[in-house]
């Protein structure tokens, strides 16, 4: 005996479960997280974020939107503007509340919109990209749900590569030998100068 979840709740649950299975350390609880504009003021406005996932490398603020049947969102620009608007407060809050153990480390922050039965045009996608909002539709979500079922937490790296394209990742820089200017690859794994006899 079971009762189906409403679509909006189901999408949020699926996204939360995906982030949990990907191994993020900190996650939002039931009903999502609330971003408080001014924590000293009890009357300060709060912004609800459907799913939040934070670890030592990244912070993700996810919004979930769905319709009962395939439809174009008349206020899509408003939705992405709102999501983009919380970015600054989200970055500052994470920095203060969950500081790094290592100094001089940088946590990458992303705002993601998960959609289900949303009809999106090319211009919508461009607008979202301009506002630094990453879009995932129901097919992408289903793909990552399957991937995480196969690979477990390792699936997060493919997910993160889609969320942070062309982003420099700390510790993965290509280093060159100062002496012979060769790139450190499989042959040159030792610190500078490289181990080649001709170097």
């Amino acid at each position, binding site marked *: 005996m079971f009762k189906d979840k409403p679509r909006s709740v189901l999408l949020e649950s699926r996204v939360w479960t995906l982030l*949990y299975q990907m*191994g*993020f*350390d*900190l*996650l*939002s*609880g*039931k*009903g*999502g*997280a*609330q*971003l*408080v504009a001014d*924590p000293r003021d009890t009357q300060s406005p*709060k912004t609800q*974020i459907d799913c*939040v996932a*934070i670890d030592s490398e990244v912070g993700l603020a996810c919004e979930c939107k769905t319709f009962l049947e395939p439809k174009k969102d008349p206020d899509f620009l408003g939705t992405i503007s709102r999501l983009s608007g919380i970015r600054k407060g*989200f970055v500052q*809050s*994470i920095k*203060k*509340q969950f500081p790094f153990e290592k100094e001089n480390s940088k946590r990458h922050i992303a705002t993601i919109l998960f959609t289900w039965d949303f009809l999106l045009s090319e211009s919508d996608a461009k607008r979202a990209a301009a506002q630094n909002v990453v879009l995932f539709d129901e097919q992408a979500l289903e793909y990552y749900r399957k991937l995480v079922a196969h690979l477990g937490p390792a699936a997060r790296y493919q997910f993160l590569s889609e969320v942070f394209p062309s982003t420099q990742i700390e510790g993965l820089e290509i280093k060159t030998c100062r002496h012979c200017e060769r790139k450190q690859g499989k042959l040159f794994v030792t610190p500078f100068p490289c181990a080649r006899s001709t170097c």
Partner: protein
Amino acid sequence: MIENVQHRDALIGFSRQQSKQIITRIIHTADLEEEQTKDGKLRLVRRVKNGFVCSKTSRGLFC
């Protein structure tokens, strides 16, 4: 400030109180009773009219 963000381990599973509520609901739904065994553990049993005691186990209901 972000409210309602916790460590993953704190968000999974049921609290002691929730577990108790769930068990109580199962007992009521399935019309079962709790009975203490000789070694002090609790087991769920279904009492039937003719006096037999049926024990609810993971493999089914045994009388």
